[in-house]
């Protein structure tokens, strides 16, 4: 706006009298214009946030009935891949046997599952390093040195509880918010 400029160089020939009132008016006009300009930035910035239809898809339901122990499926939530794994007793035992002191991001398996559904490990399938999808959900894929997931992009190894054990990733695979609506239906988000 043109008003944003007009106080920088008050004409030199202005008389002494009334200078303060003049300056005040000009400063006020420019300040109000600046406030308007800043307020305009708000919609310009927020328009890039997720729109209402994207936010509305924030929860999904997954049917667990067909997943045998030892198997995992991939599904999507908020356009991100999700691993849902039915842990075998051996995998649970292996996870529980790991001392917390060995972990980069110490968490027990129990903290990463829900009570009464301790065999269901539900995590985002997004490596916490730089966002690749780790291997290990499908039959025959490389599950890494710790029998969980392995991210081929930069070599991060996750254990059977989806915890980071080796490689560059800083954190365990994230566990989304979810709730069991029945024994075989889980609502994520």
């Amino acid at each position: 706006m043109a008003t944003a400029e007009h106080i920088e160089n008050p004409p030199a020939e202005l008389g002494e009298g009334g200078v303060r009132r003049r300056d005040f008016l000009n400063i006020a006009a420019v300040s109000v214009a600046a406030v308007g300009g800043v307020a305009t930035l708000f919609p310009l910035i927020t328009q890039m946030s997720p729109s209402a239809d994207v936010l509305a898809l924030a929860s999904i339901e997954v049917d667990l009935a067909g997943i045998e122990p030892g198997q995992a499926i991939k599904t999507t939530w908020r356009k991100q891949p999700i691993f849902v794994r039915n842990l075998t007793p051996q995998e649970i035992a292996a996870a529980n046997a790991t001392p917390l002191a060995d972990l980069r991001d110490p968490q027990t398996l129990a903290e990463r599952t829900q009570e009464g559904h301790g065999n269901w490990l539900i995590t985002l399938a997004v490596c916490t390093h730089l966002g690749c999808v780790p291997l290990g959900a499908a039959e025959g894929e490389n599950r890494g040195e710790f029998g969980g997931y392995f991210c081929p992009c930069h070599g991060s190894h996750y254990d059977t509880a989806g915890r980071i054990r080796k490689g560059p990733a800083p954190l365990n695979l994230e566990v989304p918010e979810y709730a069991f609506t029945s024994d075989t239906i889980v609502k994520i988000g």
Partner: protein
Amino acid sequence: MSFPWARQYDPKNPFMRWMDEKLPLPRLVYNAVGAGYPVPRNLNYFWNFGVLAGLALVIQIVTGIVLAMHYAASGDIAFNSVEHIMRDVNSGWLFRYLHANGASLFFVAIYIHMFRGLYYGSYKPPREMVWLLGLVIYLLMMATAFMGYVLPWGQMSFWGAQVITGFFSAIPLVGEEIRVWLLGGYAPDGATLNRFFSLHYLLPFVIAGVVILHIWALHIPGSGNPAGIDVKGEQDTVPFHPYYTAKDGFGVGIFLILLAIMTFFLPNYLGHADNYIPANPLSTPAHIVPEWYFWPFYAILRAFTVDLILPAKLWGVLAMFASILLLFFLPWLDRSPVRSGNYRPQFRIWFWVLVLDVLILGWMGGLPPEEPYVMISQVATIYYFAHFLIILPIVSRIERPLPLPNSITEAILRPGKGEQQAPPGMGSEHQPGDPEPRPAGQEA
């Protein structure tokens, strides 16, 4: 450019001095729209509209970039993606309505700017190049506006694309091929939509480039003024900043209030209901018209109804293009040495007839092509061409202009006979004995 008394850029701050040595961009701005540009002191509010048109261009580019982030140029989803903007995108409705109504106010500003140029002889030497570049901007604006109107892919969008590209099929021999080439098909479709979107995004930046040339060309002779006489000395000018930046600030406020009223309370007033119906290639709306800013040209197009040597369709298209192209020759059609209409008593009469004539053409262009509207358009079109091609060259030869004031300062302090006859808002800035500078149009 510039007058010898123009202030020199003199940065005090060491960083600005460094900047001035390496890239004198602040100096450029200072000399273009800052204190370094001396401007006649008698400009009236009609001289606000260049800045307002520039502001409108900025608003269109900013809101357009936002809309492009959410819009999808595909025949199947374009319509729904616009509704997605209206319903789901944060503040999406605001940007869409600002963009749609901003386009209309852009044309309002441009038409008043052109009116100013026509009345005060801004197209005359030494400012012919300013006028020619302005017409280039106007043509680019029309192309941009038309392609933008196609993007929502409603009924008016589709049929507008069909009809406007149909102009080219009037060209003998190769017309139909050119039309098919423009559309990328035999009827408007996904290919058309995609290329129009691409060009609609490109052209505003071309316009911005031509605007820079337009301002550059203006700064060589300096701004004109309502008295139409040359600047004689320092007492005739004031620095652009702060005098005209302040005046433009006020103008900007009024412009934004109007834009806000349209956007928030009458967002669809200037639109067409049919454009909220998705494009349907099998059914044309009962009454198709372009947006209001094309109505005068639409009336000229439809005024030719009879085959005479050439087919009526070709006459209409030729005349429509001619009605704009003749403006490029205006500096050489009107050879009167007097610029301002204030001192041209006969020109002024014909000029106001022209204004009325264009308003009538606009009115007729928005109505269905039925009698008696077509006959009225024909009379109005006759006058339009006669005015520029026949009357203006003759008037400029036989007219005896009123005596011009000796200087701009004299025009302000002792308005001549011609000025007192000027219609409200057209005259000088101040009445005799009025100590306060009151803008034109505010006089009692």
